[in-house]
Structures are given as structure tokens and as C-alpha cells.
């Protein structure tokens, strides 16, 4: 380690980087400077070019122009491996690691402890366990990574990058699928690393986190650098203005219609619904024009509830009713037939078809619902695609672009559009705002409300309690795969939700009941 720690000398220096994909100028003459020992937030709207900058710097994409220096030396890595050799470790935004390999193999891929050319499996597992223990994770590291939740996979990816002990650590939206507790652990580790002189680049759409952890901020807009500031001297509104290039219309005010919901008709109800070993039986009523939030820690059963409600997982007890009529709900097909829609949290594996265009992705569910013998005409498809691209501000506004080439946040919007296009009666959204920028975030929350006013019933999962509080009429709190509390009206606030999540004694008492 050559850490002479000259604060004036930048650790990583990027000058005049440009990158185009065909006609799209993803980056134009971008500069970026990272000092040793600092945590530097890289911010911008969806599609601003953050991930592209990271990929160009680490050699995943060839650059059109510009230079990259690390410790004063020019580097031109041509692969992630070469970047690593130059001292840059990266967790890319879309990283899923390798689900077919064990957790330990994922952590130590290509750098396993060896003896006489043979991987020391026992030693590797021991180290993997110790490494994950730092992140508060105690799991069987010999099991395939794919058998664990997205959050655990993400922690594993971060742990791997941290353990590479490079001079520069780049984390592209590392906290998107983590809950508060894990974020705290990550931040603690980031601070430790920064103290050791490592420079950290941190991309996030959670501004609270940015203010909590970062020393400096660089903002990109439409592929251009718009500013580099000290975090402490950059007020939040100013930051948002830099990112969006305009003021953000204020959205947060409590829902107007609280209390009114009692009069609304029940859209779908679930009685003693559950599945052994998956989610404890619960009762849930979803009314027209109402948002029900599901809150709880990771692994508390939120996603599992959503999958049962949609039919993606088969319940082994209880009765589902739609508009009062008992229905069978055994497969996603049943769900779609009853007018349910489901936006899963794992958009890469469960939602987006990367090779298809934006238009094709948007009409997918609608077409499936209509059946193959009633194809949508091309004109109808174009019309639908154009409407949603505009409504959700999907960028670039080109319905014929393969979805795989969109930025992460824009892919998320396409997925949302797909289900909106089916005009469902009940829409289940699992982390709808994850990876979505502040502008679009406000847009989506406004949209959620508008949809409700049109009579749609919504079940929304989110790790962001502020967000849940903003749009929910009722909040169901989960813990250890059971519904433990339902809050309504005035009772909905962050404090109450946290209290419910933390109330061990209450949870235990309730569990004893069921």
C-alpha cells in the first residue's frame, strides 16, 4: 500500500471522458475527482450517465475520449479484471453475482485460497463466514447463492468488493435492496475503509443517505457534469435543482381522503390466507381506491404476502374473494384473470425481458391478458407505449429501444407501465421506487394517488417508511413472516411502524395466538 496520503493529490482522476452509444451521448466531457479517504457521492437522474461513467472508468465499456489516472498514473483498463489489478473494486448496479455457485465461491471467485493448485475449500468457507459476520450475516456459505434473498446476495456482492482491498471502491446503488439495519452496517464499514485511506464512490437515489455518508458530491445531468460540491455546503433543494435542472414540485402532504375509506367497497379480500413455512395465515381486505402499505424488515414476509395475494405462490389455506365472490387463486394466470397485477422487486429475473423493446415490454401483460387470438394491432401498441413513456417520463423517449439498454431506473418504470397498461383492479407493487430518482420518485407517488382516485386498489411494499406513510390509507406491519399489526388513519406514522416492528413482546404474544 502506497498511502503517502497527500490530500492535495487526487487518488482517482477522470478528465474529459466522453462515451456515445450510437446516437445517444451517454457522457460528454465528464470530469471526476476522488481523493484518498473520502466518500464521494455520484448523483443524477435516471439515465444521467452514472453507471456508464463507472463502466467506462473500469474498462467494461471502451471510452471514446478522456483520461483516467489513479495515483497520478494513466490507466486504460480493458476489463473489470484489469481495473481491479489497477486498484479499483466495483459493485455494478446490475450485479447479481452467480446464483449457481456457493456463497463462499462467489466471495472468493478467482482468488480462492490455494495449496498445491487446489482450492482450500475449508479455509475458503471459514474466511467467507468471517467476512459476512462483519456484515451481521450468519448463513450457510456452502449453499448456492441463488437460494438466498436479493438483499443477502447484494450484501455478498458488497462484501466481496470490500474484501478485494483495492484503493478505490465503487458502489453503484448498493443500498437499493437493503433495509435500515443493513445500510447502517454498510455505512459503518465504508467509514472504516475511508479512514484507512480508501476512496469510495457511492451512487444512490436516497438523498438522506447521501447527506449522512458522503463528504463530497458530483452531479451529472444528461451525460454532462453539472457540479462538484462539498456535501456540507450544498443544501438539499439546491442539490435537487442541480440534478433535475428545475425545482421539484412539492408533493408530500398527508392523504386528503383519510377516514373516507370505510365507505369504499371491498375489492379483494383474503381470509385466513397463508401457506405453511411461508407466511402465517392472515386476514386482509383491500378496498377500491385505497393504498395498503406493507412494512417490515427484510425477510419479514412482505414479498411473500405479495406473491400469495397475486397467486405467484399457492396458498395452502384460506379463501380469497374478489368483489365478494370466492375465487380460486393458484397461479399468476388466475391472478391476472381476476384483474390483479404484480410488479416484482427482482426486475432482472422476474420482470424485464432485456432483448425486447420498451413497447413490447409494456404491452406484454396486456397481450397475455387478452389472449393470443386477439392480438393488439401495431397502432394500438404504439399508442399505449407512447402514452406510458410520456406519463412516466421514460428516457430516452424511444419505444423501439431494447429495454436492456435503458438505465436501471428507467427499466423499473417500464415494468410499472406494463402493469398499468392492463388497467388492473388490484396492483401489487414491490419496492416501486427502488432505484428511481427524486424527480420520478415524486412522479410515481403522485401517480399512485391518482390511480387510487380512479378506483384502483393498491398493495405497496416499501422499505422507505416515509414513503409508505405518505401514500398509505392503512399499513400492515409484518414481522417473522406474520402480520402483526394494522395501522390506519391517524395512527400511521413512522414512529408507530417502527414501534410495531420492534415490539418483540407484542409479536410473541400475537404469534402465540395464531
Amino acid at each position: 500500500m502506497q498511502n503517502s496520503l497527500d490530500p492535495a493529490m487526487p487518488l482517482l482522476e477522470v478528465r474529459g471522458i466522453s462515451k456515445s452509444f450510437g446516437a445517444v451521448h451517454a457522457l460528454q466531457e465528464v470530469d471526476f475527482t476522488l481523493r484518498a479517504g473520502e466518500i464521494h457521492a455520484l448523483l443524477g437522474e435516471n439515465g444521467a450517465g452514472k453507471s456508464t461513467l463507472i463502466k467506462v472508468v473500469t474498462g467494461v465499456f471502451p471510452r471514446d475520449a478522456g483520461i483516467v489516472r489513479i495515483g497520478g498514473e494513466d490507466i486504460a483498463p480493458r476489463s473489470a479484471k484489469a481495473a481491479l489489478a489497477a486498484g479499483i473494486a466495483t459493485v455494478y448496479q446490475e450485479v447479481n453475482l452467480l446464483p449457481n455457485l456457493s456463497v463462499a465461491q462467489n466471495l472468493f471467485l478467482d482468488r480462492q485460497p490455494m495449496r498445491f493448485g487446489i482450492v482450500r475449500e475449508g479455509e475458503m468457507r471459514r474466511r467467507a463466514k468471517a467476512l459476512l459476520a462483519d456484515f451481521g450475516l450468519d448463513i450457510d456459505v456452502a449453499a448456492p447463492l441463488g437460494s438466498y434473498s436479493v438483499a443477502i446476495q447484494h450484501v455478498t456482492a458488497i462484501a466481496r468488493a470490500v474484501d478485494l482491498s483495492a484503493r478505490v471502491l465503487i458502489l453503484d446503488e448498493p443500498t437499493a435492496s437493503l433495509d435500515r439495519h443493513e445500510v447502517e452496517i454498510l455505512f459503518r464499514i465504508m467509514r472504516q475503509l475511508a479512514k484507512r485511506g480508501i476512496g469510495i464512490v457511492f451512487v444512490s437515489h436516497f438523498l438522506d443517505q447521501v447527506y449522512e455518508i458522503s463528504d463530497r458530491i458530483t452531479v451529472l445531468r444528461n451525460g454532462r457534469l453539472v457540479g462538484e460540491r462539498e456535501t456540507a455546503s450544498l443544501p438539499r433543494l439546491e442539490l435537487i435543482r442541480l440534478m433535475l435542472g428545475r425545482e421539484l414540485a412539492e408533493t408530500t402532504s398527508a392523504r386528503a381522503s383519510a377516514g373516507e375509506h370505510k365507505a369504499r367497497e371491498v375489492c379483494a379480500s383474503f381470509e385466513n390466507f397463508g401457506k405453511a413455512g411461508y407466511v402465517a395465515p392472515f386476514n386482509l381486505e383491500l378496498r377500491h381506491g385505497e393504498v395498503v402499505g406493507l412494512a417490515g424488515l427484510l425477510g419479514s414476509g412482505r414479498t411473500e404476502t405479495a406473491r400469495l395475494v397475486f397467486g405467484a405462490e399457492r396458498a395452502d389455506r384460506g379463501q380469497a374473494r374478489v368483489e365478494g365472490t370466492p375465487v380460486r387463486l393458484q397461479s399468476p394466470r388466475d391472478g391476472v384473470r381476476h384483474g390483479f397485477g404484480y410488479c416484482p422487486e427482482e426486475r432482472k429475473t422476474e420482470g424485464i425481458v432485456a432483448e425486447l423493446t420498451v413497447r413490447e415490454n409494456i404491452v406484454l401483460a396486456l397481450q397475455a391478458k387478452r389472449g393470443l387470438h386477439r392480438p393488439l394491432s401495431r397502432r394500438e401498441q404504439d399508442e399505449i407505449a407512447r402514452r406510458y413513456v410520456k406519463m412516466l417520463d421514460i428516457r430516452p423517449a424511444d419505444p423501439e429501444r431494447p429495454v436492456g439498454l435503458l438505465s436501471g431506473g428507467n427499466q423499473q418504470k417500464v415494468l410499472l407501465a406494463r402493469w398499468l397498461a392492463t388497467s388492473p383492479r388490484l396492483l401489487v407493487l414491490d419496492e416501486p421506487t427502488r432505484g428511481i430518482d427524486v424527480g420520478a420518485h415524486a412522479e410515481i407517488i403522485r401517480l399512485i394517488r391518482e390511480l387510487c382516485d380512479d378506483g384502483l386498489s393498491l398493495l405497496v411494499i416499501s422499505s422507505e417508511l416515509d414513503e409508505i406513510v405518505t401514500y398509505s390509507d392503512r399499513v400492515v406491519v409484518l414481522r417473522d413472516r406474520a402480520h402483526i399489526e394494522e395501522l390506519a388513519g391517524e395512527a400511521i406514522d413512522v414512529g408507530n411502524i417502527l414501534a410495531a416492528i420492534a415490539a418483540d413482546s407484542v409479536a410473541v404474544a400475537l404469534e402465540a395466538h395464531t
Partner: protein
Amino acid sequence: MRGLPPVLITAIVLVTGFAACAMQFPNIASTRVVGNLLTDNAFLGIVATGMTFVIISGGIDLSVGSVIGFTTVFVALAIERWGVPPPVAFVAILVLSAAFGAAMGAVIHIFDLPPFIVTLAGMFLARGASFLLSTESVPITAPVYSTVSDFALRMPGGGRLTAIAIIMLVIVIGGALLLHLTRFGANVYALGGSRATASLMGVAVGKMTVKIYMLSSLLAGIAGIVFSFYTSAGYSLSAVGVELDTIAAVVIGGTLLTGGQGSVIGTFLGVLIQGMIQTYINFDGTLSSWWTKIATGVLLFAFIALQQALVALARRPAAKRAGAAP
């Protein structure tokens, strides 16, 4: 361990199948029959070991049968016509086949072409080249050939473990060790999981691709030499269609055709199952040898269906594992 359940099923199929055969023809359960089975399928076991690496890495190698054919012709001509000493001929053909595989791997990686297409071209190329060398069967009479053919370890019960069977067993064991215990092996699984992700995680995907196809062709070359020992001849039409038997053995052995999972031991069991069916048909005497293909086909279907079911099961979000310790 990875891939164990499908392997277990393959093992169960083999054991019950063997038991059923032995009930009908008690003579089958003898070291003599088993020894012959290993000898007859030695070349298949060797290529299948290489194919296992290719398929686990998410690829396919259709050229192996042609490489075997080319090797037999080349070796026969070199020894009999060109007067090359056998060891030199062997080394030359192994270098040649390894280079051939490396070239296919490089083309697949650099031009980002489907392995199916590239190795299909390789298949025609190698087969065509062997016809160019000679269209007729060339018998090999060199003394090494009779020495090697006569060599065998006696097993209790009168069976013979021949030299080529031993070569096959050594390669299978070596292949299993390489796949399961080394960094190279772990990278093979990584490529099968996802090439793009493996590359982002710092695996040298290009080099790995070249090495994997090189290994497959090299083993096909060795299988070709073994085949020439087995038949004492070189013939441009030998081992036609062997690539398909090989793929079948790999899949029956529990390796996922889409990559990412599998084992060499499973492949070896798959080879034995095919050999067992062949042996049964020989014992029966009335059945056409095409029944081997039909039985193999049925087994293949059964295994692919089984794997799909297992994959579907694995995809379901694992409720039991989702919890993280606070």
C-alpha cells in the same frame, strides 16, 4: 455439494438397471463383462469428460466426433505411410487438436458467436480434412499397437482391465479433480452461471473460453488415439455421431444443458449407463442394436424433464433461507 441430487438419481438408475440385467442374465455381473464395458466405452468416457466442462460452462462442442475421426486417420497414415514413430505421431496430433480447439474457443469469444455454430463448422472442417487425408480404412500394424492391446491388469473373477480402460479412468478422475478442486473448475461453473457477470467479477472470460474448448478438443484427440488402439485402424468415417452420444452421456449424468451445474462423475455414470444398455442388447441377441439409441433417447427425455423440474423448484424463492441474523 453442487449437482449432487441429479448425480444420485443417475447412480440409482445405473444400479437398478444393472441389477435388473443381472437378474435376467446372471453372467452380466462379472468382472469380465464390466472390464469389456469399460474398454468398449473408453473413448466415449474420455470425450465426455471434456464435453462436461464445455456444457457446464454454458457451451457445446459438436466437433468432437470429427476430431476423433481425423485423429485416427492422421495417426494411421503417420505411422503406416509417412514412417513417423508412434510417440511423435501422438504428440503431433495432440498439439494439432488442442490448437484446433483453442481456435474455436477464440472465434467464439472474439466474434461473440454461438458455440453451436462455431463447433458445427469445426465438425465439418475436421471431418472434411480426414476425407482429404484418406477415404479408405488404413490398418495399423505397428508393434506398439499389439503391445498396448495385449496389456491388461487381471481383475479377480477373470476380467481384464485394459490399457485404454485405465487411460479413461485416469482421465475421468483427473477431470473430476480439475473441475471440483481447482480455480479453473470454479471458473467453468462461473461462466455457466453467466458470462457477463463472471466477467464483471474479474474472471478472464476470453482465456477461459479458449482453454475450455482446447481441453475438449485435446481430450477428443486422446479419445481418437484410444479409438485407433481399439480398432487398430484409421478411418475417416469413424466416430460419426459420437458428439451426440457424448452429449447424451453428459446430460444423463445430471449436467444442466444450459450450463452452471454438473459433474464429471455423473458423466462417467452416464457413459456406463449407455454401455450397460449396449451390453444388455448384446446378451439378449435378438434385439437390434438400435434399441440402444431408443433406450438412450427415453432416458434423455426423462432426465431433461427431471432437470427442468429441479430447476423450477430451485427458482422458487427459498423461504427457509431468506432470514438474516440481525
